[in-house]
């Protein structure tokens, strides 16, 4: 019952949204088609809703005929269909609601965030600027992998001889995990050319890479360390008992097992690093957010900033899905034991 009501509400809202969409687009063909598809889609919950009603009638009939077990089966099937109807109808209501919101205020919302002319005007410069974000992120990621590993190894050096280096690595990680990335960026990008005049000619992107590397290697060192110490000491004992040296044990037994475990958290840190390239805008580096802000103040319209958001979404989502895939695969492998 609820499912049916929800389905009808969803249909009504979707029709309204489709009309707004068409009006907003001046009855453009694409908008009309999109609207029509959405409306047809919102009709879908009716199917399970009617199946649920049919199932319910079947149950009553079976009950009258005293067929208890088939009646129970029919009731369960009807309930399942009703739940499906509700689930899909709720989704239709949410989508339609979001669309209506986007066209609320006489198209004001759409105007503010999604103006096509503003996108057309800014697109070329924006994509060019976004390239800066990408290569800065990639170079930083490679450096972070190396520096992070060095820090992690320093933190795990054994014995008294390793103590001073262990302490240095510990202090480094603590400090750079404490300082907000944006502060490190400001200090490094603006400070380095003043403190070391020889670096005054360096492109600011290089300094941006240095500051992101400094921040993120502190995190990644922790990821490596957690991965290595998550391997049970009995593995190390088994390797040593066979006569393998400390380094051989690390290389052939511990690291290969740790790598698989650290890849998902490592990729998560990389995604976060990509997004933090946006912070370089505060240091006057011509990356995509800075450029979009310039366009925003030129056009008095936020749409270029939405475009920047879209760029980040497009490159991040596949990676996020990939991380999920890896995590699920590992979970499945563990479950198989």
């Amino acid at each position, binding site marked *: 019952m609820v499912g049916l009501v929800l389905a009808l509400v969803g249909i009504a809202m979707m029709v309204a949204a489709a009309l707004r969409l068409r009006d907003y687009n001046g009855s453009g063909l694409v908008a009309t088609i999109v609207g029509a598809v959405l409306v047809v889609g919102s009709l879908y919950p009716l199917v399970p809703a009617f199946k649920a009603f049919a199932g319910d009638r079947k149950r009553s009939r079976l009950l009258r005929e005293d067929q208890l077990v088939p009646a129970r089966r029919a009731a369960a099937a009807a309930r399942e269909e009703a739940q499906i109807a509700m689930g899909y109808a709720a989704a239709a209501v949410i989508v339609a609601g979001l669309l209506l919101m986007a066209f609320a205020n006489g198209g004001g919302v759409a105007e503010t965030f999604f103006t096509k002319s503003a996108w057309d005007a800014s697109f070329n410069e924006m994509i060019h600027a976004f390239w800066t974000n990408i290569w800065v992120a990639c170079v930083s990621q490679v450096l972070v992998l190396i520096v992070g590993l060095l820090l992690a190894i320093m933190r795990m050096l054994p014995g008294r001889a390793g103590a001073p280096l262990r302490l240095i690595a510990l202090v480094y990680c603590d400090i750079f995990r404490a300082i907000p990335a944006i502060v490190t960026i400001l200090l490094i990008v603006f400070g380095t050319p003043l403190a070391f005049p020889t670096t005054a000619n360096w492109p600011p992107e290089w300094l941006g890479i240095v500051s992101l590397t400094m921040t993120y290697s502190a995190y990644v060192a922790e990821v490596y360390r957690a991965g290595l110490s998550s391997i049970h000491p009995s593995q190390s004992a088994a390797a040593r*008992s*066979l006569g393998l040296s400390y380094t051989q044990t690390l290389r052939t037994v511990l690291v290969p097992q740790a790598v698989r475990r650290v890849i998902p958290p490592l990729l998560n840190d990389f995604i976060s690093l990509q997004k933090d390239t946006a912070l370089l805008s505060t240091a006057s580096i011509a990356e995509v957010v800075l450029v979009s802000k310039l366009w925003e103040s030129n056009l008095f319209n936020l749409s270029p900033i939405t475009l920047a958001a879209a760029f980040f979404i497009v490159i991040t989502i596949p990676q996020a899905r990939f991380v999920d895939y890896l995590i699920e695969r590992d979970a499945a492998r563990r479950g198989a034991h």
Partner: protein
Amino acid sequence: MAFLEIDEVHKSYGHHEVLKGVSLNVERHEVVCLIGASGSGKSTLLRCVNALEEIQGGEIRIDGDTVTGAGVDLNALRRDVGIVFQSYNLFPHMSVLENVMLAPIRVAGVAKGEARERAMTLLASVGMQDYAKSYPDRLSGGQQQRVAIVRALAMQPRVMLLDEITAALDPELVGDVLEIVRELANGGLTMLLATHEMGFAKEVASQVCFLDNGSILERGTAEQIFEQPREERTQQFLSRVVKSGRL
């Protein structure tokens, strides 16, 4: 002079003294069994012989050569002393064959082809040749333990330490593993093993030591210890073991 001499060994974790002066000799081709309650220090003693734990007092000698204290080449020592753990500890990221070949190649410097051949022969001797390509997580506990034994044997150790290697196994798998140890004993391998399989100990051990709270309370032949224990603690321990159906 015995082949393996454990002389007044003391071992503490922090303030907790786990071994309180343990002395024990194992002759060449002799099999010595350690029995004792959980926590009495059996595993710790075996780990000390393999230098997986540092000792705080006493000395361990192998073939007359002191192998404890500063300056000892641990990697060389461990080539002579093999150990098999209660929990198998196979390397899960390597196949059975790779597990067995790792140390001969990396530590003993055996050529790959020869190492493979030797590994396959050893695996065949414990009936595991068909599983050479499998990964440990696909094997039963008993199969894993047989591979672990082979992995230690591949280094051709002069003495083997076995730490309750059947304790984690289902009863019907115990027999296979013990059969292998029996063959090793018959073949003249020197062994020091912690075990609760009294019947097995009677059969292979020339000496049984009852370890209680960090020291050896009583020692003798299997018949002596199991049938006429002198110490009250030994009697109590054995009656508990009998009650739990291990004898």
